[in-house]
């Protein structure tokens, strides 16, 4: 980028429409930062340079500020992620009921460590700090789906539906 050049809002036309709609729901463009970052993450897979520029452009804030947001909130990733993201809760309520062994079970099954992505790009495994389902602990969230009262035997079945 040179001088006053502003990068293009590299969203697809369809996403751009959704972006504009979401911005119109707030008194300032910046207030739409979180929903727009979600849309960007969906479109670009993660918050890469292109996503940073596109989000900065539509929100009329600097890329540095967008980067500050994308790294602050744990739902956004600035590195590539798998097609499906597993969030395994390992906060106290889940730990008390065996989240530790579920973690090693998942790591073994997927052949990756916490925070990594399988080589086929199918899964990214991340830990979560309380998913708010403590009454049904231990729990995990795969994309938007909750799996509660997990055991080693129910994990297999849960993962099958994700390609």
């Amino acid at each position, binding site marked *: 980028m040179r001088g006053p050049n502003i990068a293009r809002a590299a969203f697809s036309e369809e996403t751009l429409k959704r972006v504009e709609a979401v911005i119109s*729901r*707030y*008194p*300032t*463009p*910046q*207030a*739409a*930062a*979180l*929903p727009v*970052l*979600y849309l960007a993450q969906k479109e670009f897979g993660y918050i890469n340079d292109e996503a940073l520029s596109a989000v900065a452009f539509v*929100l009329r*804030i600097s890329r540095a500020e967008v980067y*500050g*947001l994308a790294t*602050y*909130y*744990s*739902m*956004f990733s600035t590195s590539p992620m798998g097609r499906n993201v597993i*969030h395994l809760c*390992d*906060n*106290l*309520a889940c*730990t*008390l*009921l065996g989240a530790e062994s579920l973690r090693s079970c998942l790591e073994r099954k997927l052949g990756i460590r916490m925070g990594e992505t399988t080589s086929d790009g199918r899964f990214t495994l991340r830990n*979560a*700090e*309380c*998913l*708010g*389902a*403590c*009454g*049904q*602990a231990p729990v995990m*969230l795969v*994309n*938007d*789906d*909750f799996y509660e009262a997990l055991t080693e035997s129910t994990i297999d079945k849960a993962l099958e539906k994700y390609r």
Partner: protein
Amino acid sequence: METILLNRVHLENSRSISVYTANEGYDALKKALSMSPSGVIDEVKRANLRGRGGAGFPAAMKWGFAAADPKRPKYLLCNADEGEPGTCKDRQIMEGDPHELIEGMIIAGYAFGAEYGYIYLRAEYPRLEGILEQAISEAEGKGFLGKNICSSGFNFTIRVHRGAGAYICGEETALIESLEGKRGQSRIKPPFPVNVGAFGLPTVINNVETLANVPHIILKGGAWFAGIGPAKCPGTRIISLSGHVNRPGYYELPMGVTFREVIYEHGGGIRGGKELKAFIPGGASSPCLTPKHLSVNMDYESLAEAGSMLGSSALMVMDQDTCMVRVAERLMRFFVHESCGKCTPCREGTDWLLSILERIEAGEGKQEDIELLRDICDNIAGKTFCPLGEGALGPVRGTLKYFEEEYREHIRIKGCPMKI
């Protein structure tokens, strides 16, 4: 025992507006709109409804402050960023009876003159976004939301704003920052949100559970509500029960119920017939208590007296085999992960505490570590920017208070003596 908030959640299609209206839904709104806004505030004041987020601030007082500020427009933010570990109460309301919350918001908005409402929803509840949006559009379709609600001349819109994973955004000024598209970090107070809140305008932030009580208070009267539970803090509380109990889950019970009743009657006692070792009464930041506190009542004052706090009434139960250093370490890891990094003692201090806890648990603790833990806690206490740093001390201080010997044993035998 009669419940208030979760009356409808077991009905079929409980989320739909038709089921809601068939069961007194939106009757309270119609009644409220026939009252003056200050009349609504007075009714809620009579009920002595205190905030269910954790601080227990009287809801009507917040509304009154915001109503008195001449600036417009005003905002009502519903704090649905239920992030305190162990807590899953607001989720039950939003999932099972979203209109209860929406009706509460409309009435609150009417009471202090808000035009816009946002529900700041926890990122970890992705499905709830759709449920709430569906409910909002149903309410709009029936004329309960939007322009000129029920021909009263009152306009109110609600939008769902999904957070993105930051515990601190449950603190009200951090929530506002996050809503404005910034890094969710607490603001300097004063000014207070009731005067300078979202987008610089008067703003009230109420918890989901608080708002969900409002339609019931309007419909049945403040006096009725004030008669339930202890006088200082009437009403019910949704308790999230987790850990080593036979029947974990959520229970709506009157304020002031004893821990014994919750753990042994509703929760069915400790799993596997084991002994109770300790319990955390109000979410991760409340210091733990021991079996000798089983008769303590679950209300703000009784718990403060017992040296802990009611917080979000998330009750986590631990059996005899639980390592309390491990518990402290696990919870400290959470606070380190969630510290926003703005103020020195929280950013550096919590990390230091965690390092020491990890070392003790791993059998590498030093004799002086116990004193060091206490001193670091003292150096953090009262000096952090927001309550997060203070809350992070709960697990360490609580476990040290009742289980210091267990810490010492870790150091002595260079390892963890417990099974978990």
